């Protein structure tokens, strides 16, 4: 027993010494293989799996490359700092455990699922896996996490750290070449970077600000057109509600949410008005003004009549000094006028108009913010006034148009004749 202990000890000392001398680093972590196999096999028995040091003999060299020139360099400093720093090379490159060195170029793919089964399962249902299954280039674990340099997501240097995820995703989703080829959909990295979420994330460094994975998920990212996607119209209320819970609850009480619940995907969800990636601060005037047109994509007739009014004209020219849609109808909890909770319910009009028009009365709110001069039934007086004005303009311009044309003709002829007479 003593001899065996001594032997084990000497093997460990040898391995440590070798690791130290090869890596030239202080305190290298003991290799798991060394720890896990406490002299299970005598050092002289059968060809032992190569230790990390064996691998590094070749792979630490800056010139290490495949036949095609692609690098296969592994820097021990980087690997040791990674979360897998305690593992031995063959833990991941399993086929090398029994291979003879130097090994053939072609190795088996590293199976992360050996340890990370949960993530691998989630990855299987993702749009990324689907793309790969279709034969197109799609991301693997390494595309996002890296290879020998993987760090835990709590590490600020990690690719999957909250503040770095946007950049990690952008390596493909902001890659103009991939976008041009249609492998990656439109570039949203710029609009996200300029958005309130992107700004707060990058400039203020707020960990509570959402990054890509906050809305899309990490491993199980689905296409937005997939009804099960976190960002599908029917689910986005919950997704945004993770942070904006109060707003989600308001929205849930409105007519738009009710339509979405009934499966009407034509109804607006959060991103319809706020956009998906380029979300602006809701108190930004330019954004508030643009939402008016957004309402108009569905409510075209209401937008048209709104634009005919003072409110519509002033907002069209870029001023928020007058009411837009949400000022009267509410923003998230939009309800029809027939609903007594609606701000445009008859009983609430004095209060609603009174937000701007302080001295609004019951008589005042008989104003029609969507008046239509072409609609006889809506307001006959307006209809006839508009008709009269049209006739008046046509009459005046018609009469004086003729008057002017004839007068011009006469004086023009007179002027031309006069010098001719003088010449004679």
């Amino acid at each position, binding site marked *: 027993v003593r001899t065996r202990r001594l032997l084990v000890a000497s093997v460990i000392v040898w391995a440590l010494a070798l690791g130290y001398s090869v890596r030239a680093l202080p305190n290298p972590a003991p290799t798991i293989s060394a720890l896990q196999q406490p002299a299970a096999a005598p050092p002289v028995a059968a060809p032992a799996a190569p230790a990390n040091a064996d691998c590094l003999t070749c792979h630490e060299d800056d010139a290490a490359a495949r036949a095609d020139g692609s690098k296969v360099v592994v820097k021990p400093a980087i690997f040791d700092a990674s979360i897998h720093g305690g593992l031995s090379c063959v833990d991941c490159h399993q086929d090398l455990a029994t291979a003879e060195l130097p090994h053939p170029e072609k190795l088996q793919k590293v199976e992360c699922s050996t340890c990370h089964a949960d993530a691998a399962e989630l990855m299987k249902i993702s749009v990324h896996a689907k793309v790969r299954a279709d034969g197109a280039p799609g991301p693997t674990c390494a595309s996002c996490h890296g290879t020998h340099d993987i760090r835990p997501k709590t590490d600020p240097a990690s690719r999957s750290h909250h503040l770095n995820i946007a950049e990690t995703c952008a390596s493909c989703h902001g890659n103009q070449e991939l976008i041009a080829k249609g492998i990656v959909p439109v570039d949203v990295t710029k609009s996200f970077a300029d958005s309130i979420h992107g700004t707060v994330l990058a400039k203020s460094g707020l960990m509570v600000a959402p990054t890509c994975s906050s809305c899309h998920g990490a491993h199980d990212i689905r296409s937005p057109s997939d009804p099960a996607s976190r960002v599908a119209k029917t689910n986005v209320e919950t997704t945004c509600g993770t942070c904006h819970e109060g707003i989600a609850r308001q929205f849930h009480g409105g007519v738009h949410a009710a339509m979405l619940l009934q499966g009407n995907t034509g109804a607006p969800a959060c991103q319809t008005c706020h956009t998906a990636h380029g979300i602006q601060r809701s108190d930004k005037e330019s954004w508030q003004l643009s939402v008016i047109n957004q309402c108009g994509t569905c409510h075209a007739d209401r937008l048209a009549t709104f634009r005919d009014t003072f409110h519509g004209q002033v907002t069209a020219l*870029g001023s928020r000094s007058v009411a837009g849609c949400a000022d009267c109808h509410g923003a998230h909890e939009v309800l029809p006028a027939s609903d007594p909770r609606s701000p445009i319910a008859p009983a609430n009009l004095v209060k609603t108009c009174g937000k701007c028009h302080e001295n609004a009365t019951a008589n005042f709110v008989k104003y029609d913010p969507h008046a239509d001069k072409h609609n006889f039934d809506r307001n006959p007086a*307006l209809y006839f006034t508009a008709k009269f004005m049209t006739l008046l*303009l046509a009459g005046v311009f018609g009469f004086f148009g003729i008057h002017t044309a004839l007068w011009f003709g006469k004086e023009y002829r007179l002027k031309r004749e006069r010098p001719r007479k003088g010449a004679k």
Partner: protein
Amino acid sequence: MSAPQPIGGRYVSRFGRTDRLLHGFLMLSFLGLALTGLPLLFSHARWAPGLAAVFGGIRAAGVLHRIFAVILIAVFVIHVGRLLKRVILEKDYSIFWGPSSLVPQPRDLRDLKDHFLWFVGRGERPLFERFTYWEKFDYWAVFWGMAIIGGSGLMLWFPEAFAWVVPGWVFNIALVVHGEEALLAVGFIFTIHFFNGHLRPEKFPMDMVIFTGSVSEQELRHERPAEYERLRRTGELDRLTVAPPRPSTWTLGRIVGTTAVTIGLVLVGFIIFALISS
């Protein structure tokens, strides 16, 4: 045709200093109102945001619009006050009827008919009096326009106050009336009035009388023979004779007039562009 400098000879006074000054403020406020109001009326037009931006955005344009409106209302009130003074204090009833009155009279219908016949070469040019039928139309169009546009404008300015008297939907009508009537006024002044006053071949480039206040005897005899005859007969001509306009007044009038006509015609271009492209 107007010479670049006042022609020599006798000059007859046509408009007093106050009336010319009022017309000056009328021009200023009318152009200002048109420039600051049209972006709103044609808010969908491509030039609208740009024109509003010239005044510092539509909000600032709105403030200026109200300032010009106050000036124009003041002009209107002063004008009506002066008329009332003439009638009540000076017992001058000539503004109601006769050659110095702007009230339409039977001879205006005759003049209109004869003018048309002259246009088409079937008669002599009518012998016009002090105020021709088209000048009377101009006057009453502006008078009516002031009441309609001014009234509806005040309504839109102070809707809460007006709602004590009228129901809210009247403001819907007020907006349509304000816009359409303004379009009529702007379109009429910038085309018909400018043509009648300045741009027709006989007047081109400009009739200076509204700036100088006087007209040469020769021009008066040619344009308003009936008035000229009447003034000569009654001896008024001598009383109204004034010194020829000073060249500085003449030049100033040319600059102001040309500027106004240019702005007006550009705005007409804008309106036509907006109407075509909408």
